[in-house]
Structure formats: C-alpha cells, structure tokens
C-alpha cells in the first residue's frame, strides 16, 4: 500500500524546499531503498515541468573501503562533478540499510574519503552561495534508522512525517508560519557579540559579532528547524560536553568532551570511539575549529534518534560542528570535515548573550 504522506513529502520537497521551476534540471540522489519516494519525486518534478535525472547508488561504500586501494578510495567520479556542475536543483535523500556497516573500517581510510570528497562539497556550496544551485537534504525511513532510534518502522515513519508537518492539512503553510518564528530568533541573535553556554561540564564562550544567523526553514534540510551561524574562528574558549553520542559516517563516539583555546580544540576525549574522534579532527587544519553553532528549534523532534538530520533540530538543544563553515554565515573556516555534535540543554542549562541570560533549560526567554 502506498503511504499518501510519501506523495505529500515528495510534493513539499520538490515544490516548497527545492522550489523547482519549469525547465530546470533536477538531480535526485538516493540509495536504492528510497525507490518509493524517488518515484513520487520523479513524478512531482515532471509535473513541475522540470527535468528529473537520477543518481541512485547501491550500498557499496563498505566494499570500496575494505577492498579498494588508496587510489580507488580517493577517486572522485567525474560523473559526480558533472552532477554538481549541471544541476539547477539537487535533492539528496539519505537512507540506511545498516547504519553500522562501516564500524570495522579503518578510520584512516574514512578520513581519506572525506578529504577526497571535499572538492565536490566545496563546489556545490560555492554554486549554492552564488545562487546557481539549490539543494535539499532529506531522509527516508528504513528499519535500520528506526532501529537506531529504538522504534518500530511505523513509529519511526510517524516521527519523521510528524517532524515534517505532513500530518497537517497544508504542510507548506505550516512551514511558512514556522519559518517566521525562526526568522524572529535569527533577527534577535543577529545583534549579539558573544555567546556563553553553561551546563554540566560545559562552559564555552565564542564570538559571533558580525556573523549572519540563518533561519533553516525547510529549504536546504527537510524536515528542518534551527537557526545557525559560524562563530569567529579563533574565538572559542572553554569546555563543552556532548550528552548525546556523536555519530559520523556510521561511527558512534560516546560522551565527547572538547576543550577549546584560541578557537582550536586542544583536548578531545570520549568514553568510546576516541581513536576515530582523533583521526577525524586531524583530517586537516580546519577540522579543529568550529564551523557552525546552532539552536535546535523543532519541538516535534523530541527524541534522540542517532540521525544528525533530526537530532540537530531537537527543540531545546544546541549543536556545534567541527570543520567547514557555511560561507553564507560569513564563516571562513574550511575543512574536509563537517561534524555536528549535539548538546542537550533541556535541563540545568543557561546561555548568555553579551552577559545577559537569553536561554534557559531549552527555551529562549524573550517570550518565544
């Protein structure tokens, strides 16, 4: 039986998030398990008068990383360069069939993948910044992701579609309204110079003066719900402890604690996966600095599911990303890495802006 929410999801992704217009070339990227949603998106793109092209992959990353040589692992497919150059809109759907398939892979090889891929990411971010390319990242529910979230598949589907407001009669209107609220927060934060986050084992300050705060309202990520910026590269000072496991490319690192000095990580510990953490922050110069700081503001995302697309939007959390910054925020840090780590602030926490308490126990104090 087809799920009508899938049809609605496709329509929102193509019409609202991607803003697909007649004659545009729309690249649909997904692993093969996404077929049902892919068919719906393909239809929606055709109905918009645009041209769908697909880049559908098999789950071969673990074969490449275990059987390929370094040249093969680092190889950048010229077809992917064409994808990034030619597309007017790029809709990427993530879906896992086994989120732990890469666990036994040598972290050094994964670092090699990150480094070689950064060329493609830099180029699409560049085209996005100049307005030549719009991109959307979304997720498709599978048993593997449901298992990570400790839910049944149907519970997990309800969770995702709920977070995407697809149960609402008019999801687009709901997203527009939600976006207004996010923009109000971004405007409020735009006048601030310095942020200080205080929670258990956490006291971190960073400067955000002159940087843009962006309301993420369902265009580049879907579902969505955060406001984010890029702090000054040399400003972070102090300590932070991430209560949620930090997950990157299928690898989980537990109880990460970072100490910053002069904007740089000077100490990194974890109770599990510390080697992987060290390997990743050594990928390049920029991997030790903060590229993003953000507030998660989607209250329909209320549990940790081990999927960063959702977790970073949990209402009442903040996250920071080690590595590359979004240039539209004014950030200048560049790295092959962009690793979001989430800090739950829903109890016993405070955030100060320029010395004034603005956020307590997961909520802003300025009325919203």
């Amino acid at each position: 039986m087809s799920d009508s929410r899938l049809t609605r999801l496709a329509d929102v992704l193509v019409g609202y998030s991607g803003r697909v217009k007649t004659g545009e070339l729309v690249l649909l990227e997904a692993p093969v398990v996404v077929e049902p949603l892919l068919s719906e998106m393909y239809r929606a793109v055709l109905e918009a008068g645009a041209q769908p092209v697909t880049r559908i992959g098999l789950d071969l990353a673990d074969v490449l990383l275990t059987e390929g040589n370094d040249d093969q692992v680092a190889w950048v497919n010229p077809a992917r360069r064409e994808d990034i150059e030619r597309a007017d809109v790029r809709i990427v759907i993530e879906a896992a069939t086994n989120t732990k398939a890469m666990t036994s892979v040598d972290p050094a090889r994964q670092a090699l993948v990150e480094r070689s891929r950064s060329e493609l990411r830099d180029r699409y971010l560049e085209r996005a910044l100049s307005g030549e390319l719009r991109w959307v990242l979304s997720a498709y529910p599978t048993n593997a992701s449901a298992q990570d979230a400790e839910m049944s598949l149907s519970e997990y589907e309800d969770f995702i579609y709920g977070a995407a407001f697809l149960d609402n009669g008019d999801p687009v209107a709901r997203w527009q309204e939600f976006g207004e609220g996010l923009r109000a927060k971004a405007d409020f934060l735009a006048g601030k110079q310095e942020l200080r986050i205080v929670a258990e084992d956490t006291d971190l300050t960073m400067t955000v003066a002159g940087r843009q705060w962006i309301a993420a309202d369902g265009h580049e990520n879907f579902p969505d719900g955060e406001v984010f910026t890029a702090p000054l590269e040399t400003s972070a000072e102090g300590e932070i402890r991430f209560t949620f496991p930090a997950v990157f490319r299928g690898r989980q690192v537990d109880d990460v604690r970072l100490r910053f000095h002069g904007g740089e990580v000077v100490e990194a510990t974890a109770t599990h996966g510390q080697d992987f953490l060290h390997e990743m922050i050594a990928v390049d110069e920029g991997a030790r600095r903060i590229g993003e700081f953000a507030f998660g503001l989607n209250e329909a995302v209320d549990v940790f599911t081990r999927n960063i697309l959702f977790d970073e939007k949990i209402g009442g959390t903040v996250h920071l990303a080690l590595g590359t910054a979004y240039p539209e925020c004014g950030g200048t840090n560049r790295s092959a890495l962009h690793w979001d780590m989430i800090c739950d602030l829903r109890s016993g926490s405070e955030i100060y802006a320029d010395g004034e308490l603005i956020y307590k126990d997961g909520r802003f104090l300025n009325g919203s």
Partner: protein
Amino acid sequence: MRDPRVDRLGELIVSYSLGLAPGHILRVDVPPVAAPLATALYRAALAAGAHPYANVEPEQLSEILVTKGNDDQLEFLSPIAAAEIEFVHAIVTIWAEENTRALTRVPPDRHQRLIASSRKLVKRRWERIAAGELSWCGVVFPTNAHAQDAEMSLEEYEHFVFRACHVEGAEDPVAHWNAVRDDLRRRADALSEAREIRILGPDTDLRLGVEDRLWQPADGRHNMPDGEVYTSPLETVTEGDIRFTFPALFRGREVEDIRLRFEDGKVVGAEAARGLEFLEALLDVDEGARRLGEVAFGLNYEIDRFTNNTLFDEKIGGTMHVALGSSFEELGGENTSALHWDLVCDLREDGEVYADGELVWRAGHFLEQPEPARV
C-alpha cells in the same frame, strides 16, 4: 548469501568481456533487482585496479516518464549522461526485469519517443567502441519475470543462465570463452569466403547472397552469454521460403509460426498462425523492413530451449536466425531501417546448410569436413 556463480560472472565480464585495465572507469547500468551482479562486477573491477560505479535505473521511472512526461521531457537527453559516455572506458548493461510486460499498454508512439531519446547516446557508444576507446557488455541477470517468460522456476532459470555463461561448474570460464573465441573466429573466417548460403529445413529453402560480406564472431565480448557468427546478407539476392517455428517477439508482442517468401531480397509473402496483422505492420515500417539485415548461426549449445528472450533464443545451439531491417555497416551491410527484428529458425531436427553448394551444417552442427552437395 553470495552466490559464487554471480561472483564468477562478474569476474568473467571484467577480465574477459571488458578487459578492464587499472585506472579505467567502469559504469554498471543496473536495475535494483540485479544488485548482486552489480556488486560482483564492482568487486571484480576493484580487484582489477579500475574505478567502478553503479548507475541504478529503476524500471518504474521509465513508466512514469512515458505516462506523465510531456514531449520535451520524453525526448530530453541529459547533459550528464552525454558527458559520461565520453569519459567512461567501459559500460556493463545488466538486463533484469521485474515485469517484462510493464510497458505493454503504453501508447507505442510515446514508447518510441523514449527509445529515440537515447539513440544519440547509443550511437556515440558504438562509435567509441569502434574506435577502441570503450568496451561494452550486455548481460542478463536472472529474475522471476524472465523465468516466468521461460516457463521455469527461478532456480531452474538461474541454472540455465549461468550454464549458458559457463560460470556454473568448476571449469574456468575465461578458458572456455577463449576457446569459443578461437572456434567462432575460425567459423567466421571460413564463412567470409562463401558467396551463397542455402538453408534447407521443414518448409524452408532459402538462398542468401553473402559475397564480400564479413562474418563476425559474437564471442562474449558484447553479450554474455553469447555464441553466434553473423553477417549482413546482400540486400537484393535472397530468394525462397523460410518458416520460423519459434514464436517471434517484438517489444513484448508475439507472432506465431511465421512463413516468409523472398524474391530479389524482398519479402513478397508473409503468413502467421497468430499476430499476422502485427507482422504486416512491422513489414510496412519502412522500405528496409522487408529486407534482411542479418543472417546468423546460433552456436551456444548450453542454450537448448526457447525462453522468450531474444538474447538467448538467437544463440540456441543448432538454430539460425535472420533479422528483418537494419544491417551492420561494419560488415558491409547497406540496408537501413528503424526495424531490426530477429526471427529464429530451429534446424536441430533435419536442417541443412550449404555454402556455395557444399554441405557445411547438418542437424544443428557444423560438419568438421564440408560434404559435396547431394541435391
């Protein structure tokens, strides 16, 4: 669980069919149902030092495009695909359908448009193959849909397909196909000397002119399984009658028990027990549709039965096939047509083939020594 036959098939295609070298880029075009073979090809290509990638093509997207797309969308040629055809060194096309009749009800003109949209890419592919810049192999991966057409269980059909590819048992498939290559090359060279081919069989006595036409071995480089030698006959010489005992298929439609009469190379009489109207429509597609573009010997004796799939049927050991329509330019053929329809003639019971009056083939096998004509 990994099927060792699928792994062997992947290795065979990478090393024998494609001859993939380190640094080469291989694209595997694959419907989702054939993921195991794509994975095997990916592994084998990595082991060969190449750069493989899979390009998954879900079957139902074509259906959505044909039914919902406007003319522009249907005829669109992706600039990405056009770029890919220039830089890949090898392509494997995996044919594996989940429903061989999914497009049966689609309006034929829209289906035609969809096929036409890829013609430019196909043409460019063959240009690069001819220039030695690109290798290509089409291979079947067994599915229930194909098994159903063949009236077999999936397990029986897998056995049939893998045996025809010689990856079923303990033998070395590459050694087998190397031997096939030599054998077919010898046959093709001998046939290239002939001026006339005469086919005798039940209700069949057909003479074809092949003077100065090149016979080509189909030895597993472009198709797997494979096994035929073929040429394009002279366009205005074919004379006589031929009866095709196997059903003839075109785009999922069947015509049964076709009988054709040729004069001066042209079909002048056509009969069929079923589907005559469709047969006549195809003969009227254009000028070239009434002339032969191909004549060939099927020489894969592991393919021992009709399975409703031309890729296999035309290679049944002991059969011959002719194709109405377009011929092979590189073999000297001059017939052009939008049609290329292979029709298979079973000669295993009491067929005889003469080359310039000498008996060269009897009851489905080439003779070691040609015999003088008895007639």
